């Protein structure tokens, strides 16, 4: 019989609803798992065992009254520490917010509580979600559960590692350039970036506002669909959120992909892709073909240029968003005789290396005389990326690529080479620029024994289709491999 921490979200919710197990037992099993593994993994900045226990108790009491339970009742959840929870320290992985206790909760926090989830902890991340390895966290790197000498990816590395290691069956991350999909790939779990605006960002600490999106992590596609349903929807408090109604993502999940037109992005088959990644991707294509998918290569010439546009757009937006950390309204304050010196010293002491680098880059790209040459041009390249996608979707229903060109790399390996680190996001960034949804699902292990992710991309609001394709693939391939923990 499986341990409680091995169960999927679907199974936990079902067994609690049946009365086979209690929510408190589930909370304690995961709290214990976190306590045992945290010294090695460091997936959390702030574990919240008491909150999980209290939420579990409320679920058990509700069940005892015979009242119907919400869809994720009693399911433990890891929440990326970039989303505000009223009364719970929220750092965004930064020293500058080390003592920040938000006076309000984000919309998704309310929705997740209403759905019955148990908050087991605030998960580690690259500072302000800038990074692809969690090495930029002010609270230490998270270790990959598959190999403790390697990174879990990032920026949502803590959430991905927690889900992979059985500290929680589901997690929440944010994805600005691949920050859900890339760590999902490197940790061997499912991660989805929904359409921009599908999930409210009220209460999310902003990085790049035209790109940021909240999304789900899970160990299988069904749980991913359940969790997406719990957080998707319009929110009057977020003017960028989409008013369209939210479908039931479980409906038609098992309808298969017979006749689906699938485009392989030619630009993702470059020489820079690790042979083991290319090999597993090829296997995945065969599986999709055997399921009735009509697979063909398609060229998106701007795919390779999206990275450069992103690394001007995201820093420009971040330099503007992070101007709020001035030592006045929240966060740390350095001592200084005047307010302008206080601002500059606070930011110098509070921000880490990568955040400073991007604030500098973005400030430069927006400064007088350079705006048109950098930010303006990057926004035009963004249009080219969108046009390439639009054209591809004339002929194809979905597009596929590897999620990341490599498997998990060693801690420290790319830390001193920003450009090499940025290349991690080569295949994930185009979907962010287009605002479109994309999912990463495990597709086997590479020659180094580490997990590889298959990325499935679709047009705006095609979440149901992506989940259906991912579910068909997952069902054909069988359950994903689990780390040896």
């Amino acid at each position, binding site marked *: 019989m499986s341990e409680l921490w091995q169960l999927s979200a679907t199974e936990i919710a079902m067994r609690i609803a049946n009365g086979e197990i209690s929510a408190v037992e589930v909370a304690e099993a995961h709290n214990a798992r976190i306590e045992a593994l945290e010294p090695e993994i460091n997936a959390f900045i702030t574990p919240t065992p008491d909150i999980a226990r209290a939420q579990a108790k409320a679920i058990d009491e509700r069940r005892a009254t015979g009242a119907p339970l919400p869809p994720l009742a009693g399911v433990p959840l890891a929440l990326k520490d970039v989303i505000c929870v009223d009364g719970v320290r929220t750092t965004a992985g930064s020293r500058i917010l080390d003592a920040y206790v938000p006076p309000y909760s984000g919309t998704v926090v309310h929705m997740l509580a209403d759905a019955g989830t148990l908050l087991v902890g605030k998960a580690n991340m690259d500072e302000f979600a800038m990074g692809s390895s969690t090495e930029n966290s002010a609270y230490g790197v998270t270790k990959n559960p598959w190999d403790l000498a390697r990174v879990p990816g990032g920026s949502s590395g803590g959430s991905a590692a927690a889900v992979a290691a059985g500290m929680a069956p589901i997690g929440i991350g944010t994805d600005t350039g691949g920050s859900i999909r890339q760590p999902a790939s490197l940790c061997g779990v499912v991660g989805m970036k929904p359409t921009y605006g599908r999930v409210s960002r009220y209460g999310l600490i902003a990085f790049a506002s035209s790109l940021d999106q909240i999304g789900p992590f899970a160990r299988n596609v069904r749980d991913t669909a359940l969790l997406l349903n719990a957080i998707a929807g319009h929110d009057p408090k977020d003017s*960028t959120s989409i008013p369209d109604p939210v479908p039931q993502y479980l409906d038609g999940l098992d309808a298969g992909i017979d006749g689906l037109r699938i485009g392989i992005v030619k630009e993702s088959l470059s020489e820079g892709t690790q042979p083991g990644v290319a090999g597993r991707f090829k296997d995945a294509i065969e599986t999709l073909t055997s399921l009735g998918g009509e697979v063909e290569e398609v060229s998106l010439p*701007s795919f390779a*240029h999206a990275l450069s546009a992103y690394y001007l757009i995201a820093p420009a937006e971040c330099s503007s968003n992070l101007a709020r950390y001035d030592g006045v309204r929240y966060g740390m304050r350095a001592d200084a005789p005047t307010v302008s*010196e206080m601002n500059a010293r606070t930011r110098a002491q509070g921000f880490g290396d990568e955040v*400073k680098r991007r*604030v500098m880059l973005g400030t*430069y790209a927006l400064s007088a005389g350079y705006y048109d040459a950098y930010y303006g*041009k990057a*926004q035009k390249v963004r249009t080219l990326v969108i046009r390439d996608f639009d054209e591809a979707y004339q002929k194809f229903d979905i597009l596929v690529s590897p999620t990341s060109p490599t498997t998990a790399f060693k801690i420290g390996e790319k830390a001193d080479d920003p450009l090499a680190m940025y290349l991690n996001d080569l295949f994930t960034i185009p979907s962010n620029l287009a605002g479109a949804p994309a999912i990463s699902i495990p597709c086997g292990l590479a020659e180094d024994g580490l997990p590889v992710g298959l990325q499935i991309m679709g047009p705006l609001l095609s979440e149901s289709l992506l989940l259906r394709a991912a579910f068909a693939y997952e069902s054909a391939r069988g359950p994903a491999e689990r780390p040896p923990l």
Partner: protein
Amino acid sequence: MALTKEQVLHVAKLARLALSDDEIEKFQRQLSVILDHAEKVMALADDGVPATAHALPLSNVFREDVAEPCLPQDKALSTAPESEQGRFKVPRIMEDPT
């Protein structure tokens, strides 16, 4: 393009970052490499291509002008490093004239 030290200092001032000499030297080098990489690609976008600021066809999102509950003053001030009489308190704004 290679950034000069003066440019880096100017940007640091605009960004309100009190950088160390080591950081200035490092960012001068690293930002030049990143910008070089970006410039190659930027050449693709000619004047005929419109800019995209936002990927969704959403604009001018309005609501009725009706007041709704918001954070009370004491909660809004609860995270401030320093506050006084219901206000955020900061160090002196004017430089010392002497």
